[in-house]
């Protein structure tokens, strides 16, 4: 912002410029247009406007909406769930591998969420053989550790592109309104990396309870110690006191949340945080590959869950369980799925937080 000279100030000395010829004027204006267009074009390039094939967070979430329908205010995946409140009691055993305060302090508060990995918040609990557990640990120093774990040991694919194609294979065909049943088998036929997952899923049954499942980080991370040394790890939450393990799920709708409320009314639920240390040759950046049995496992402590809250009014509702929100002492690996989860969750989070006012009243979480 420059002021025009006041009338009584002497005008700055300025040599008279000869007027521009029409050709020169057009050339100069054209030059300005070229410079501005170059900057705007570079911006559009970075923004992906010239590359419609680029996998964007929007495309990832759009395909989930296409397959599952839009349920305003709900998560675009793992839409059906329940909040849990508790704390984590560190055993101190992970302290030598990581400086994260959560492994040092005796108790760290936790807000978690059990869920079904489906995009429909009204899906029957028996419709998927997988359950998930997301946790947010809030350390005393204000840093947080967020993790989203699943009851499967490996992910079907190793890249976000393949995950996207797998979702596309399940999209409704515009002609019939239903997914083409030949597409998913065709996808797996051309994706041999899915064999470990497919082998596991053959024997997987929908569990009758959230409390009896083991929840795995699936992706790998690094623990970082005080000297900066990094150890590749995967972690899992394993239930202690498995009284009803292996029970088959009842048919139908909404037994998981009822079971959890019932169990927590009787006593807190405990899970052990097992951290598996990779050997140098283990695949760190590929969530579709298992690590061989016999790796060293550190018992980092016990997760104690004390009560549930409905997901539409509970504390977990407004938490984005982005697996790359990590405290000092834990780092993400270069697994490409981690960055894609972080980017995709952010897009889903913006969509659903924009729709909070459209959520059904918290107390009547009935089907519409």
């Amino acid at each position, binding site marked *: 912002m420059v002021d025009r000279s006041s009338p009584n100030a*002497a005008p700055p000395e300025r040599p008279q410029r000869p007027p521009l010829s029409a050709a020169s004027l057009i050339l100069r204006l054209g030059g300005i247009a070229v410079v501005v267009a170059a900057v705007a074009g570079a911006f559009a390039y970075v923004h992906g406007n010239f590359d419609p094939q680029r996998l964007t967070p929007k495309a990832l979430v759009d395909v989930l909406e296409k397959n599952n329908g839009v349920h305003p205010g709900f998560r675009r995946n793992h839409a059906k769930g329940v909040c849990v409140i508790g704390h984590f009691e560190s055993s101190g055993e992970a302290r030598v591998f990581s400086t994260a305060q959560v492994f040092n302090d005796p108790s760290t508060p936790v807000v978690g969420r059990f869920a079904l990995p489906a995009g429909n918040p009204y899906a029957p609990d028996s419709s998927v053989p997988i359950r998930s557990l997301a946790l947010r640990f809030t350390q005393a*120093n204000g*840093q947080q550790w967020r993790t989203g774990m699943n009851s499967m040991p490996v992910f079907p694919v190793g890249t976000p592109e393949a995950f996207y194609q797998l979702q596309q294979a399940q999209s409704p065909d515009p002609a019939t309104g239903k997914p083409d049943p030949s597409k998913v088998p065709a996808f797996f036929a051309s994706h041999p990396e899915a064999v470990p997952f497919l082998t596991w899923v053959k024997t997987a049954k929908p569990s009758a309870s959230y409390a009896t499942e083991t929840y795995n980080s699936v992706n790998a991370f690094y623990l970082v110690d005080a000297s900066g040394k990094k150890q590749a790890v995967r972690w899992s939450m394993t239930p202690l006191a498995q009284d009803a393990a292996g029970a088959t799920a009842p048919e139908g709708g909404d037994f998981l949340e009822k079971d959890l409320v019932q169990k927590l009314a009787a006593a807190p639920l405990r899970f052990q945080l097992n951290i598996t240390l990779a050997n140098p040759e283990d695949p760190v950046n590929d969530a579709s590959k298992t690590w061989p049995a016999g790796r060293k496992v550190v018992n980092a402590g016990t997760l104690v869950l004390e009560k549930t809250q409905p997901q539409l009014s509970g504390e977990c*509702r407004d938490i984005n369980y982005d697996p790359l929100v990590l405290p000092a002492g834990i780092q993400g690996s270069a697994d490409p799925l981690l*960055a894609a989860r972080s*980017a995709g969750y952010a897009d889903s989070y913006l969509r659903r937080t924009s729709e909070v006012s459209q959520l059904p009243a918290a107390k009547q979480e009935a089907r519409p």
Partner: protein
Amino acid sequence: MRTQPTHFVLLARLLHWLMALMIIAMLFIGAGMVTSVSERHEWLIHLHKPLGIAILVLVVVRLLVRLTTRQPPLPADLPDFQVLAAKASHLLLYALMLVLPLLGWAMISASGEPVMLSTTLQLPSIVPADAQLFAWLRKAHGYLAYLLFLTVLLHLAAALFHGWVRRDEVLDSMLRGRDRH
């Protein structure tokens, strides 16, 4: 009567060009970040946050410099609508340079995430965690960033218009400290 300065003071020119680089970089980082799911998304976010806070600090310094130093006047023969456009667009640039980092800081606060500038450097939250507030702030941050980019383009076009077409002293006053002749 004091004579009017013909150029911006050295500190003002340094701040202008340093921030020009940082803001252009920031706009490109933001555009790449929100349209990528690759590892690039992650490292761009880790650049975006500290760079945004650095811009916030610098714009405060810059406003102080702006308010305590004298600026060269606009050319006396500049048409009124161009004077108005120059003043309005500069006001908008200053406002957006100040507001965008604050919106970014506030939106992370509203999401309930700790505001981390590095693995250990944490800023306090400036608004309470609130989902609806987050959605509003996040959208405002995005839309105003596009507006800033358009304003920067206009600023660039106007500066070149002064330098190449009008051939007055405006562009020169930000490029160097003394007249050429």
